[in-house]
């Protein structure tokens, strides 16, 4: 039975449970709703949930567990002579699955009968040709053990599927019967249903946290793998970045880190004053009409994809800077359009709405009573802003700046297009440099062996970046939280 049908069946069972549970509770109370502990629909929902949850849980667990169990069984059927390590065993196993799928398709198309598919032998039939006829291409001739394994795989899958269907329906029915039996007018169905809802909410919240943990774990294992191949000291303190896929590459993070830091610094120098001034204007001086137009306009900037900013950097800002600081302008500081300054300026523009929108919210959260108090003492508006509103909002603004900084550090596209690809340690902001994020992209998109240090270094870089931005975010949260209630 296809899984979709199974799900629909369980759902239908649940709906029947809803109707039955509801009417059983009502009849138990003699048709008087006031006799019931909960509203009738809660009794219905209780049976519905008691049917759906065990049924779908069994289904989910089975779907996860069955392939693992079958995989284990089948791989023990492959003779040890056919593979040398875990990697080639996986190759053989994927062959087995291909053949099994091919047999399935052949049966569906009528090229083979069910019995034929079960009993077919490599000794008597050219499997590759027969499967080729139904459109399943196999790379090589099918070995006898592969075919046997594939046939066994099909059988186990089919049997497992039937047992699963039975188990799911049994679990659903058990829950159904149990909940329906317990339904009477004094049963606390409402509390029960709310408990389930609580569980649902907790599940949603923990899923997000678990995903983060999963991301960290996947990074950690590859990072450890990398440090086995390449010494950590050379990675963290090396001043040269020259990966060569032939081997003998130097993978020092410092030039990349310097590039990231330098670009982010320029971006923040641009974004923080402009964003902050914009926020002060919007929240303190602008009238409601100006605010209604200007604020969304400013926030449109935040919706522009960063690749578009990258193009802007490459096509407009770079040449513009060249005209002033390059050979043409007479200064000769700049060799090409791509430089730290180009990327930094454009990234700063990207961060302006980020800083201004967060700061605007924070400034608005400063109670009007503070402003009144200051104005009532004879302070002007700008004195009030400078000496009362901004100091009161400062912790929040610092938090906003740190959040902007962690965005700048993680930014990729603008840097790829604006800053160039040369890893170097230099103080000149008009030279091309590169950052951690862009190197992660280029190390993983090459056709390097995935197990080499040159590819694995991407994970070490990612991990370092993750730790830094996490640190910044935590710092921002701590600062915001520590001072938040000061004026409440």
């Amino acid at each position: 039975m296809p899984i979709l049908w199974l799900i629909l069946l369980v759902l239908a069972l649940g709906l029947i449970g809803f109707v039955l549970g509801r009417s059983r509770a009502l009849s138990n109370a003699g048709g008087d709703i006031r006799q019931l502990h909960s509203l009738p629909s809660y009794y219905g929902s209780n049976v519905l949930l008691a049917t759906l949850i065990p049924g779908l849980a069994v289904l989910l667990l089975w779907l996860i567990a069955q392939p693992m169990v079958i995989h284990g069984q089948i791989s023990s059927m492959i003779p040890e002579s056919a593979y040398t390590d875990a990697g080639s065993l996986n190759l053989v196993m994927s062959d087995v699955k291909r053949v099994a799928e091919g047999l399935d398709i052949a049966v569906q198309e009528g090229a083979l009968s069910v019995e034929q598919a079960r009993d077919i032998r490599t000794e008597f039939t050219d499997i590759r040709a027969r499967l080729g006829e139904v459109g399943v291409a196999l790379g090589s001739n099918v070995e006898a053990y592969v075919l046997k394994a594939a046939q066994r795989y099909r059988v186990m899958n089919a049997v497992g599927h039937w047992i699963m269907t039975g188990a799911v329906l049994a679990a659903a029915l058990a829950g159904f019967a149990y909940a329906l039996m317990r339904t009477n007018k004094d049963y606390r169905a409402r509390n029960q249903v709310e408990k389930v809802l609580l569980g649902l909410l907790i599940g949603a919240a923990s899923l997000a946290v678990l995903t983060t943990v999963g991301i960290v774990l996947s990074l950690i294992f590859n990072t450890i793998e990398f440090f086995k191949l390449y010494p950590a000291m050379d990675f963290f303190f090396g001043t040269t970045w020259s990966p060569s896929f032939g081997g003998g590459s130097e993978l020092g993070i410092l030039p990349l880190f310097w590039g990231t830091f330098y670009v982010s610094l320029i971006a923040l120098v641009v974004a923080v004053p402009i964003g902050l001034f914009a926020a002060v204007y919007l929240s303190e001086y602008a009238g409601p009409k100006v605010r209604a137009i200007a604020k969304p306009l400013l926030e449109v900037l935040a919706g522009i994809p960063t690749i578009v900013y990258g193009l802007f950097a490459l096509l407009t800002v770079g040449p513009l800077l060249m005209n002033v600081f390059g050979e043409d302008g007479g200064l000769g500081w700049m060799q090409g359009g791509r430089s730290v300054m180009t990327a930094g300026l454009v990234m700063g523009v990207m961060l302006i709405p980020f800083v201004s929108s967060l700061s605007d919210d924070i400034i608005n959260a400063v109670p009007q009573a503070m402003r009144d108090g200051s104005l009532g003492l004879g302070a002007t508006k700008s004195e009030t802003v400078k000496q009362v509103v901004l100091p009161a909002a400062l912790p929040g603004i610092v938090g906003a700046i740190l959040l902007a900084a962690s965005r700048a550090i993680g930014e990729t596209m603008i840097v790829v297009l604006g800053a160039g690809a040369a890893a170097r340690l230099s103080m000149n902001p008009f030279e091309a440099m590169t950052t951690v994020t862009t190197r992660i992209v280029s190390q993983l998109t090459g056709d390097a062996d995935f197990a080499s240090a040159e590819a694995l270094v991407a994970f070490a870089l990612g991990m370092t970046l993750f730790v830094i931005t996490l640190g910044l975010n935590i710092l921002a949260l701590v600062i915001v939280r520590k001072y938040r209630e000061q004026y409440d």
Partner: protein
Amino acid sequence: MNDMRIVKRDVDMNDTKISAKGVQVFYGDTHAIKDVDVEIKDKTVTAFIGPSGCGKSTFLRCLNRMNDTIDICRVEGNILLDGEDIYDKRVDPVQLRAKVGMVFQRPNPFPKSIYDNIAYGPRIHGLAKNKADLDEIVEKALRRGAIWDEVKDRLDAPGTGLSGGQQQRLCIARAVATEPEVLLMDEPCSALDPIATLQVEELIDELRENFSVVIVTHSMQQAARVSQKTAFFHLGNLVEYGDTEQIFTNPQDERTESYITGRIG
């Protein structure tokens, strides 16, 4: 009610400090204050009483042009401070507010140290020549605010860490520090407990020696305890204005009598 009255001080209270004539206030289309005439005496506590929404706070805010900060608010009529029209174009509202200080309903200390809270006004108006001068001004203001003994050892502590009553006295001290001539108080005790209220009321009576004080209050007992003059507002009109004793014992207007006996409110 009389046994709770604070002992009357003998001060001269004959000069008119603020004189309002035909004041009208509009919030957008709402006519909030209708043709109010009032003469506020120097070195006197004047109480504004009336039911909620009667316009007493709005009128109070006209006296130092705090209503200017509200866009839709429009004020007509004349308000003279020492004979000068405060709504004249030549008058800088910022300068005016330094002369007419204000204390708000809820204590609103700045998130700064106690010292900086008090020093805020003197600093922006350049009242102190040097640090020692400023220290002196701060101490004097805190003493006048009747809070010096409680905070003299922790002037660097944040003002927001004080209790509600202390915060309100700090705010009064902050307003006093700029040496205003008139002190406006908008329900200064509404967020305080009875003991803190009593302390603030005693303070108000002491302030009368140096300032003209105008207080908006919901509590008629408070008006009776601290004020010498009382104005009763109702629905944007000034119904009755006179000596506090006369208003509470022998009101001329029927609405005043209904309000102070609790029949309308």
